[in-house]
């Protein structure tokens, strides 16, 4: 299962990298969000996939899953959510103000 997950992470990273390297801003944002999912999967895989019951009170399990990666994951998802949203808003504004979403034209000149 871990191997499969690692392959999936690799696929997500590949797609994400491809999208980030394109010119359109929207694709870049989609790319970052896909890489973000890859990273989240990597964290949960690296922490070890399910080996015991859910780490909740009131359940009579002998072993519990390590809850730390899940806590990390939740935090990472929230932060990812916030930055992606901010990035979207900003690039929308940039598109309105600058009139382009082509990164080639966003490069800017030296003297301005």
């Amino acid at each position, binding site marked *: 299962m871990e191997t499969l997950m690692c392959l999936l992470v690799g696929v997500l990273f590949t797609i994400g990298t491809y999208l980030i390297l394109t010119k359109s801003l929207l694709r870049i944002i989609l790319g970052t969000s896909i890489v973000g999912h890859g990273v989240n999967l990597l964290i949960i895989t690296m922490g070890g996939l399910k080996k015991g019951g859910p780490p*909740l*009170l*009131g359940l009579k399990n002998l072993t519990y899953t390590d809850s730390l990666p899940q806590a990390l994951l*939740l935090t990472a998802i929230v932060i990812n959510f916030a930055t992606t*949203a901010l990035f979207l*808003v900003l690039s929308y504004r940039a598109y*309105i103000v600058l009139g382009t979403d082509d990164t080639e034209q966003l490069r800017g000149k030296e003297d301005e």
Partner: protein
Amino acid sequence: MKEPNDIIIRSVAKVAVVIIFTFAINLFISGHHYPGGGFIGGLAFASAVILLFLTFDIETVRKNIPLDFKVVAAIGVLIAVLTGVGSLLFDVPFLSQSFGYFNLPVFGKTELATAVLFDIGVALAVIGTALTIIMSIGDDR
């Protein structure tokens, strides 16, 4: 602006929004011992409001819910942090939580925990942030 005329989504939304609100509150309450909690409850709550945005337009909803959602988020974070500060008064580490059992008139023996206060803060912060984001993208034309 042209008046939208989506009978189906309007009639569905009127029922669905109430159900989502209830479910959000359920998620929030159950978060103390079971899956759920302030974050997911807040998101569900925000999704109901977003459904309202989609069904009726943003102006109508804002007229009926005259809140600045940035302030909601700020109040949420303040509540969350201040519950942590509360533990400074009792000389225990910051963010310490405690709980106790109380006999309430209607509910009988009930567990009340300070973690819920923290969670209310989280929920408000999530609702405020999510709606601020949606509105700052959607409001602009």
